[in-house]
């Protein structure tokens, strides 16, 4: 008895308008000719041109991209290991502490994570810069990866792996040839999650960056504190565009994959 009443339709329309209108307005006004962001003065792409001339933004974007690629890759390796330990580690000393350390960073306020890492880096005399941001991002993203991968591992049928071992695989081969392909979708979404978390992070990067490195969110932050600016609108539009293309194509790919799988299963039943 599921039915879409006028109440449901109104809630959905208003709800999605609330979620999307602010971003839509931002996108529209990024093409505004005027320096005054709230007054429309005709269509122009000049702010995109100015953005591409802005060395500070470009170099910050480059730093951010570097940090995100490196930290999300490390986080995926460490996080997958963490998930294997969580789901299959069995009993070992300090298991409770381990799972606590995996889940705690997910709910820890960023200001605390940032502060504590900064105090550590200063305590051991590590020069702050790109390297320390990578360490910080790897640490909090690996926990997200662990959670994503372990939810896939829980539903994994271990007899497949046992069959591979019976057929003469070494444990490493069994992992590479059987386990990894099956958990691959979770590992990939873990990487994507870690990548976006790193791209997005302002607070932890501000604590751990030091004076020598500036990431894009830090650059945006110092500029938006002074108010709304057309250049930031243009930059936001580019970033929203990239994410939208990424998410929509990813969901189309998964949809097609699941359709293909359904077709194969149907063919198998008929055969």
């Amino acid at each position, binding site marked *: 008895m599921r039915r879409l009443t006028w109440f449901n339709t109104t809630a959905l329309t208003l709800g999605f308008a609330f979620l999307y209108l602010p971003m839509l307005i*931002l996108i529209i006004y990024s093409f505004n000719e005027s320096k005054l962001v709230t007054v429309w003065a005709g269509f122009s792409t000049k702010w995109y041109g100015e953005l591409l001339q802005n060395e500070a933004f470009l170099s910050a974007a480059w730093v951010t991209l570097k940090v995100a690629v490196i930290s999300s890759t490390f986080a995926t390796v460490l996080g997958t290991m963490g998930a294997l330990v969580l789901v299959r580690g069995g009993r070992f000393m300090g298991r409770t502490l381990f799972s606590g350390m995996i889940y705690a960073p997910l709910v820890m306020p960023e200001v605390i994570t940032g502060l504590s890492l900064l105090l550590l880096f200063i305590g051991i005399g590590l020069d702050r810069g790109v390297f320390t941001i990578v360490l910080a991002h*790897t640490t909090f993203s690996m926990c997200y990866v662990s959670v994503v991968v372990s939810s896939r591992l829980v539903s994994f049928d271990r007899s497949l792996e046992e069959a591979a071992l019976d057929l003469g695989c070494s444990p490493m081969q069994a992992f590479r040839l059987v386990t990894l392909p099956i958990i691959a979708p979770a590992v990939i979404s873990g990487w994507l999650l870690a990548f976006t978390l790193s791209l997005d992070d302002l607070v932890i990067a501000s604590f751990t960056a030091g004076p020598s490195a500036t990431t894009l969110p830090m650059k945006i932050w110092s500029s938006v504190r002074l108010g709304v600016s057309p250049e930031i609108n243009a930059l936001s539009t580019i970033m929203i565009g990239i994410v939208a293309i990424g998410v929509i194509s990813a969901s189309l790919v998964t949809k097609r994959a699941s359709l293909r799988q359904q077709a194969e299963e149907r063919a198998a039943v008929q055969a």
Partner: protein
Amino acid sequence: MRRAALIFVPYFWLLALFLVPFLIVLKISLSDTALAIPPYTPTLDLGNGWQGIKDFWAELDLENFEFLTSDDLYWKAYLSSLKIAVISTILTLLVGYPIAYGMANAPDHWRPTLMMLVILPFWTSFLIRVYSWMGILSSEGYLNQLLMGLGLISAPLTILNTNSAVYIGIVYTYLPFMILPIYSALERLDASLLEAAEDLGCSRFTAFWLVTVPLSKNGIIAGCFLVFIPALGEFVIPSLLGGSQTLMIGKVLWEEFFNNRDWPVASAVAVILLLILIIPIILFQRNEQKQREMDG
């Protein structure tokens, strides 16, 4: 051997970069501010052996925590963070529930698209989503232009740099966290239960209140915690949308550290914030566990 290595690597990483840093915060919160580099005393001097460790312990005290209780600013900031987090969690629930309910009642072939539309904002930059409201809420912003254009108000409303703007910001950015758990609870709800309630003489509204709401309780609880916990320590939203009178503890910690350079007090603020957060975090974990046991 291989298993030991597998456990050791992530374990060691988290010990070194999560637990140890936190112990350092705890230690510095018990130290005194000093004009030195680093700006606190005592520092642990292992060169002096056992005597050095004893001297170090002797100098730690609760002075910073006493300072936090004596200065109005801090406990007011904690209370006001709690108030803002509670009110915005309730507002997010009121906005999110109808959306999740609408999604659960939508035709099957719409649902993947609706899901994607809820998740998409989560992947876009948090900072940009907060920033997008600055242009809308400012006194010459789009909202005031619209309301004045329609003749509903004659003078612009002041919304940006007030607590109302902070509420709007939190509801907007955390809405997906509220919608998703409620939607997944509602989606699993057996529609024949509602039919039964209506057959037995309930009105649609009573059936909703007596059947749907209790059966989506776990989703509501999970959603509320997912909004409340991060909102309590929020820094970006009160800094961009709030005004000088908006007190939130994340902002106080940031200013204490970066502007006043008072590391011991900033650390003490962090320790207390964490103590406050432990209660909702444990409650949330317990709710999740109960949910898993019911499913399993």
